[in-house]
């Protein structure tokens, strides 16, 4: 029994020794490729696991990097979009300031060459009823605005004050059907009356009717129409517009359409003439 145990021990010991030697020897045997046999065996046996783990780790790492990268890109995109929005706003603001400055420069220039006293006013409300064309301005009696005072813009005649309060006034535009301005054709000195064109409220037309011009009068398309001063409201010589079309008409008078020189679609700052019209005599320099 003891002998059998010793034999088993010894075989075990033999095996261990052989294995140890194999390990030691294999450590010193160059199996090609610079790797020992053990290394090759271990490489062969374990490298698939390593590859697997490495692949998983790489994928995870790539995913993680991509996630963070994407988050970064997303964040950067958001930041850039915000910046673009900010710059767009800034650009709009600058454009608005430039436009405002241009408008004020025009008005200042007009104010300088006008031989009459004027007061600048901002439009605070446009027409709210379909049947009339008028605007409300932020200047009234306290600023020296009086009833029937002519209202002009940098580009031409706008209308007249039809109602005035202490701090605001209502201006009837030339486009209103109830308006009327005494005018003359600058070239031929033919006189007539300009008023809002007959039409539907929502037709969007901004043409004016030039009425009471005799059928034989000398009027051609492109003629400049200026105020005549005969209505004793508007000073003489202010530009109203240009003749757009001339028709024969059905009776004694021609049918003439005038394109106003004032831009009614973008009225913002206007000038109200202070003082009675009959004392005014404007020069041609206004144009």
């Amino acid at each position, binding site marked *: 029994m003891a002998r059998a145990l010793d034999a088993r021990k010894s075989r075990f010991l033999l095996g261990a020794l052989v294995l140890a030697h194999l390990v030691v020897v294999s450590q010193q045997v160059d199996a090609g490729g610079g790797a020992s046999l053990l290394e090759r065996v271990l490489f062969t046996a374990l490298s698939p696991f390593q590859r697997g783990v490495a692949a998983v780790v790489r994928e995870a790492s790539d995913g993680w990097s991509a996630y963070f990268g994407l988050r970064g890109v997303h964040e950067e995109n958001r930041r850039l979009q915000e910046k673009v929005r900010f710059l767009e706003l800034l650009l709009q603001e600058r454009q608005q300031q430039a436009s405002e400055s241009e408008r004020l420069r025009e008005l200042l220039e007009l104010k300088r060459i006008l031989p009459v006293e004027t007061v600048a006013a901002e*439009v*605070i*409300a*446009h*027409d*709210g*009823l*379909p*049947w*009339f*064309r*008028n605007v*409300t301005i932020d200047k009234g009696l306290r600023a020296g605005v009086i009833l029937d005072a002519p209202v002009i813009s940098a580009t031409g005649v706008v209308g007249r004050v*039809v*109602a005035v309060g202490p701090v605001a006034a*209502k201006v*009837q535009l030339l486009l*209103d*059907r*109830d308006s009327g301005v005494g005018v003359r054709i600058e070239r031929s000195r033919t006189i007539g009356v300009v008023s*809002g064109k007959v*039409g*539907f*409220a*929502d*037709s*969007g037309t901004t043409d004016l009717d030039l009425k009471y011009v005799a059928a034989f009068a000398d009027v051609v398309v492109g003629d400049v129409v200026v105020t005549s001063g005969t209505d004793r409201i508007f000073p003489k010589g202010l530009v109203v517009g240009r003749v757009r079309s001339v028709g024969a008409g059905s009776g004694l008078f021609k049918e003439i359409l005038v394109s106003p020189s004032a831009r009614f*679609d973008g*009225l913002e700052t206007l000038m109200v003439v202070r003082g009675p019209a009959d004392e005014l005599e404007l020069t041609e320099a206004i144009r």
Partner: protein
Amino acid sequence: MRIPFWTAAAILVALLVQSAVSQAAPGYARILDPFLLVLVYCGLSGGETHGMLAGAAAGWVQDVHFGGTVMGLSGLTKILVGFAVGVGAARFLLAGPGARLLVLLVATVVDAVLFEQLAAIFDVRAYELSTGGLATRATLNAVIGVLLFEVVDRRRRRRELRS
């Protein structure tokens, strides 16, 4: 005391809305009539007297701020419309959104037709609304009015329940 206060406040709001819309989108303010919404609501909820008085006040405010050289045309028109709405509300059940939509459509059309007829009678040279323009105005007033009335009614009901 509360009803006149709220009516005046509503007219003031209508003025502000009309002014704001006219500033923001010149030309488009003509297709909405917030003053009409005020008087129609007053007529529907308070009867002909309330509708008529609200119409008078709203019409005059509208005349003064947006009207032509002859004052009172909108006032007169809106008195008639406010009264008619009040009478209608007393005789028919006009509490539902559908009925209110119809009332607003008819009120807008009647308001415009009355105004144009009165302008012609008083020799006030005013533009006329085309059929399309009138339909747009009526539809817009009706849709906005129904939504607004619903909101106001809900608030009133909530306040009544609380009290």
